[in-house]
């Protein structure tokens, strides 16, 4: 199966000169991904290689398909009855876009952080322990260890360590979002998808999230959708520009933001876009 993916690499990637092959390991190989909502083609033949242990930013105007792309990776699009998908998404030698894929295992490997902080109305501890619990961890001590480790990785441990049994709703918006990141990390995902994770937060909280992403990228692959160009330029190693369901340009963030090769990319990153 891995061989298949590599074969496809050759074919479809050489074709598009605006798609740069990332240096280093590849985490996700997406091939000819199409997504329809009823008759509307939301993603049009998207092929991309997403680098491992690196931050990849997806930018583009609203409705360009970047969130749809993100939600295809962990199959959250399945929840929308009218959504249809074709194409392949290769992760660890498995085509996760295949209808027979075990989405439970997939989503354990591919965590997600949403636009608005969405902690459960439970305690901080129970929020982080939710994932491990549903995957069968019941030992108290083990859970406590996982919770502590995850909160530390999400850089929120010091703020909440004394009241882990307080309701998650008592935290500020920025803290809630880091708690949600901790909750996602608690099931040890290989990939973390972030859908505009800072768009509902103030600048200081945003900065904290960005610092956190920098720490995390040594261990996991992060794909972030953002409307904030500065943010994309600051945090990401690679950037993909989406427009009307197509991946227009993909490459090193430094190149995309300083010397874009496509006129449309240039217009968008310089703010001249409609």
């Amino acid at each position, binding site marked *: 199966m891995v061989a298949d993916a590599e074969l496809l690499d050759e074919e479809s990637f050489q074709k598009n000169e605006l798609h740069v092959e990332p240096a280093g390991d590849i985490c996700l190989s997406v091939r000819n991904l199409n997504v329809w909502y009823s008759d509307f083609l939301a993603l049009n033949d998207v092929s991309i290689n997403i680098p491992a242990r690196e931050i990849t930013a997806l930018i583009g105007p609203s409705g360009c398909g970047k969130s749809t792309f993100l939600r295809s990776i*962990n199959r*959250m699009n399945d*929840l929308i*009855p009218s959504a249809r998908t074709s194409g392949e998404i290769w992760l660890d030698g498995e085509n996760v876009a295949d209808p027979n894929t075990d*989405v*439970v*295992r*997939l*989503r*354990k490997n591919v*965590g*997600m952080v*949403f636009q*608005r902080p*969405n*902690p*459960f*109305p439970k305690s901080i501890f129970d929020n982080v322990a*939710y*994932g491990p619990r*549903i*995957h069968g961890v019941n030992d108290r001590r083990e859970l406590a260890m996982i919770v502590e480790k995850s909160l530390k990785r999400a850089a929120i441990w010091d703020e909440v360590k004394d009241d882990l049994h307080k*309701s998650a*709703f008592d935290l500020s918006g920025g803290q809630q979002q880091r708690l*949600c990141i901790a*909750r*996602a990390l608690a*099931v040890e995902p290989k990939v973390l998808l972030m859908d505009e994770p800072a768009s509902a937060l103030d600048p200081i909280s945003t900065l904290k999230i960005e610092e956190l992403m920098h720490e995390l990228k040594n261990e996991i692959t992060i794909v972030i959708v953002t409307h904030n160009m500065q943010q994309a330029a600051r945090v990401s190693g690679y950037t993909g520009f989406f427009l009307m369901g197509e991946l227009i340009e993909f490459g090193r963030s430094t190149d995309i933001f300083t010397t874009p090769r496509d006129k449309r990319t240039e217009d968008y990153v310089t703010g001249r876009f409609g």
Partner: protein
Amino acid sequence: MANSRIEKLKSAAGYIVFWVIAAILCLAYHMWLPAGAIICLGLVFLPTILLDGLAKQKYIFTLLSFSALFVVLPVLAIIYLLTVKGFPAMSWEFISKPPTNMMRDGGILPAIVGTTYLVIGTLVFAVPIGLLAAIYLSEYAKPGRFTRIVRLAIVNLAGVPSVVYGLFGLGLFVMMLKLRTSILSGSLTLAVLTLPVVITAAEEALSSVPRSFREASLALGATRWQTTVKVVLPNAVSGIVTGLILGISRAAGETAPILFTVAAFYLRDLPHSIFDQAMALPYHLYVISTQVPNAPPKMQWGTALVLLIMVLGMNLVAAIIRTKFRRSKKW
């Protein structure tokens, strides 16, 4: 300015002419009641045309408050009347002894016990089926023909007159399934009657749980069932319990469905099993009000008061549960 005032007077005049003609027509045909209603309504709504700005807002606000008040009045009146008339009948004997002297004296214990059994029996059947159906509709069902049919069935079930439920219970449970007139048959019939209320309330409670909670859970690799049990249900409990109790208290007061399926005219002994007949408060009230000559009115008022206390008690429990859970709910 002058123009707008003229416009206003014109529309007011049209309005008044319309009401006056309507009233005169009614009077001409000796329809006193409609005429009175039309005149009153005309007077009540006239200021909404003549008044302007803040005064108009205030007038309409007052109108709305009074309408709301009219909803409270019947409730207070019922409670007041039943308490005043029924209280003299209240005694330890009344709620702890069976009826005596052809149901003209004694107590109503068998009816209280019977209604309690019926409530419990209804809960036993209506809760699991109603809750599971609501979970299916809210969490699993995809829009399609089957879901549409189920929803249509629920709406229609809610619209079926209660006496039809009684005959349905007689036909299906009593005769076809040979459960005889028994607490079991009555509970099943009442459960069917309660189901639409339970399902609708539970589904509403489930779907009011924010979608983001479900997404968060599913994105962590939880199955739909895990998500439902661990995230959705705990946050919908208050709504579900409220709907449940309101449905059940409705069933507790129904007479027609139990008429042919369980209710006994008079029983000296309490029921021994779910296959026995039982007396029930609503039916007993009907019996001593219409079937027993010279039954003292205080027995009737007393029975009605006990039934009301049981039903209001259940509603009170629902209210307490609702406020208790609402306090811990923060989204």
